[in-house]
């Protein structure tokens, strides 16, 4: 089964739900990037220039993370689900009214939660910072409820579908819906059921890794598998290979949470288990990368012609890099150098920005002209958007890796000596603070890279909103939905 065959006998699709999710998400992407640039400068380059209880690094960082993970990426992904799941099933969304209800609940709980962090509502668990309560309103539970409504809506759409065979994007979607629900339940509420201390840390790292691995990865891959064949108007290279990728993800991801705390206060056998399963990750990654590249194998000229294809292919390349890093970082001796410094920050930005944000952006380039039935406002701006995004990515991510790696090497090798006392004295002679100073120029380069990316995506937002709001500049082309 290929995507191209699904275009026959189209029912009419109501895309209101897509608009409810995607339109605000685009705005929050740019806000999230702004907060990122702000902390890059105010936290690290000109430390504490804007000082005080509500603007210091520790208070604004979760606002940045809350924006880019939840308000932008997760929301945009759900919006794209609302677009392509009905089309892969050949039926309209099960209930547009339910989708609008869940979207209102989604934004009404998520926005106040993310913006409340500077007031002191951070709940203290990585990626689960959003507060249980704001005042007397159980915001986190309401947000989870909104997710459940979304899952019900999409599941019912799939259950009532007309096309019997399920395309790989649907597999990933169904996987995501199951995994996300479980992951949120475990990470957000299950964490309080285990004893305090390292048991909760273990649950948290399970949740942290699954948030990336079982939510953003399958969501992003579902988009790449849907939109790349769409843009290239060509079938996916191998459905079987995509299934291998899917099942190996299902098999490995849930086991590897504790590789975040290698050498740390957690049982050695658990660390070893996590390492072994981390190595397995090479399988889903290579299968995905090979499959997507091969899809374009006869049509590489499209890379030059289409901006979204460039976003997807660059996203795949970055995905390859991030997923080569991932299993290697999970090795004990590599982790000794790369862990606990900016290398990890580089790793998380390449996956959430340069991979999954690129995929979502490509999807939006398809979806917005399709649902507004107008051509893209400006192809040239789109081209600039891609070029600047890619150009910005290099000074954005590379300094984090290089600087982080050098700092890690400094920590591991700064001391020497033939006796313990001499060793300790050498260690104390190079104070920790000097390794902070080492990072200054790397952090500065990163901040300027971030500025370029902020600028590039401002162009994207302008382009998208001009497409949405302004009358079409060109004669409307035939838009295939």
């Amino acid at each position, binding site marked *: 089964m290929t995507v191209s065959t699904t275009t026959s006998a189209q029912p009419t699709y109501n895309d209101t739900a897509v608009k409810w999710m995607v339109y605000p998400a685009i705005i929050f992407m740019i806000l999230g990037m702004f907060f990122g640039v702000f902390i890059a400068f105010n936290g690290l380059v000109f430390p504490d220039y804007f000082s005080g209880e509500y603007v210091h690094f520790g208070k604004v960082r979760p606002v940045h993370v809350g924006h880019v993970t939840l308000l932008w990426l997760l929301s945009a992904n759900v919006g794209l689900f609302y677009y392509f799941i009905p089309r892969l099933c050949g039926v309209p969304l099960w209930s547009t009214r339910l989708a609008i209800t869940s979207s209102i609940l989604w934004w009404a709980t998520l926005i106040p939660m993310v913006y409340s962090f500077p007031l002191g509502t951070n709940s203290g668990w990585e990626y689960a910072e959003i507060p249980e309560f704001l005042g007397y309103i159980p915001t986190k539970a309401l947000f989870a409820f909104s997710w459940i409504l979304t899952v019900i809506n999409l599941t019912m759409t799939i259950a009532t579908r007309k096309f019997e065979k399920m395309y790989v994007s649907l597999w990933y979607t169904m996987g995501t819906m199951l995994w996300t629900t479980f992951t949120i339940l475990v990470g957000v509420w299950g964490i309080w059921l285990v004893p305090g201390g390292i048991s909760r840390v273990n649950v948290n790292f399970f949740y942290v890794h699954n948030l990336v691995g079982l939510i953003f990865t399958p969501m992003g891959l579902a988009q790449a598998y849907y939109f790349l064949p769409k843009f290239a108007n060509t079938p996916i290279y191998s459905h079987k290979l995509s299934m291998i990728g899917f099942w190996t993800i299902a098999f490995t991801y849930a086991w590897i949470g504790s590789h975040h705390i290698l050498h740390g206060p957690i049982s050695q056998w658990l660390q070893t288990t996590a390492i072994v399963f981390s190595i397995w990750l090479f399988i889903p990654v290579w299968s995905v990368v090979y499959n997507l590249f091969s899809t374009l194998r006869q049509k590489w000229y499209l890379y030059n012609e289409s901006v979204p294809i460039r976003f997807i292919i660059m996203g795949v390349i970055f995905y390859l890099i991030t997923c080569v890093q991932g299993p290697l970082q999970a090795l004990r001796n590599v982790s000794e150098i790369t862990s*606990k410094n900016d290398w990890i920050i580089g790793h998380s930005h390449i996956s959430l920005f340069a991979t999954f944000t690129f995929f979502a952006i490509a999807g939006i380039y398809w979806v917005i002209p399709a649902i507004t039935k107008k051509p893209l406002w400006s192809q040239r701006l789109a081209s600039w958007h891609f070029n600047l995004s890619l150009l910005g990515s290099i000074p954005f991510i590379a300094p984090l890796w290089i600087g982080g790696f050098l700092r890690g090497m400094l920590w*591991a090798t700064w001391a020497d000596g033939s006796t313990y006392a001499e060793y300790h004295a050498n260690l104390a002679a190079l104070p920790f603070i000097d390794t902070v100073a080492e990072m200054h120029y790397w952090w500065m380069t990163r901040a300027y890279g971030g500025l370029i990316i902020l600028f590039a995506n401002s162009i994207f937002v302008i382009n998208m909103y001009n497409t949405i709001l302004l009358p079409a500049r060109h004669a409307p082309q035939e838009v295939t939905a």
Partner: protein
Amino acid sequence: MTEANNKKGFWQSFELSALVAITGIIVLFSSAVIVTLIAPNFVDPTWTQPTTPYQVQMHEISDPNFYISSSPIQPEEIQAVYHLKNGFTLLAFQESYTTRILASKELEKYVTRYQSSTPLKLTSKVLLLRPPADKSKADALQKELNEEWKKSNPKETSPNFVILELFEPKENEAFAVAPTDGVLEDWVDENFVILDKNNQHSYHNDPGVIFINNPLEYKVQYITYFGKKGWLYDPAGEPIASLEQLKGGDMGFRSRQELIQIGETIYAHEGCWYCHTDQTRTLVQDVVLNGSDSFPAPPSSPNEYIYNRITFPGTHRIGPDLSRVGIKRPSRDWHRSHFWSPKTASKGSIMPAFQHFFDEDPRGSSVRTTGIPNYKFEAIYQYLMTKGTRITPPTQAWWLGKDPINTINLIEGARSK
């Protein structure tokens, strides 16, 4: 493309492979949850069991009954008050060369006399020290001690001998001050005896116990200061009537347990954990950096965290690791100036200033350059001071037997080849 029959029921519309897939996903996911999240709690005892009785007693006995506040009139002086409970708190009345205790005949057995060979006497009966009511007895003792000093040290001025009287308050509980650093507690694990065998709490049977040495009755004086009501510690003032009064709005005492919990919450809210890790890893770089100049620090063990509500092992070390900060930086003054202005206190630091942990000095003329620490500072300070200080009792070398990576051999053995 074949289309499914729309008249099929809900369940029939799922093909078998989809059901198999969903079941498969659930089975794979749950097996991972069982093995990696649930099993370790039962397999590895260090995840749930404490390291030493000291750790347990600090948490269960000392923290809830040690209260901290500061007078609005003398905010520079931190007040640390013990809440003593009959049949619970262990007290020692121990003489030293400069501290002497007067006791009536019934109370004589509770005093560990200077230079006596008896083991340390502990009691769970509520008794207190106070300045002697009968001045003549005290004066006579003072004179005797001074003469004794002059005989042995004719050229030096005699020290200030403190003479206190032991008495039994009428209530079953009392409030007391005692010499303390506010972080570690007095601990005895050999050569002690607990009197009152019929008045025992279960922790008294532990191999070592936390006790309070020479508690003095805590009394305060209420005064009005520039139209503002306030209170001051005054040995001649009124005693504290109840715990409610101590914790009430006027005095505002909080137990160390409450402060540690508030501190943990502040640590979460302020995002300290984005830049600081709380784990000494099993790596030479970590144990040596957190260790002393003669011994490496023990790597963090799961049981150090068992009393946390939230644990912050951290993923990024922009600033240094904090898992041993209670050992490395115990000074309250250091933390005070560091939180006020990290860039000044530690040159080259990029840490933000935390001046909202301080209030303005009500007198408007502080001799200090920092503000007056408020409860947020006390809370974060007490929270940080739990890091590394509770692994072993203060009487034991904390690094002994806790070097799984064999650091010294690794460093010295590797070079000698």
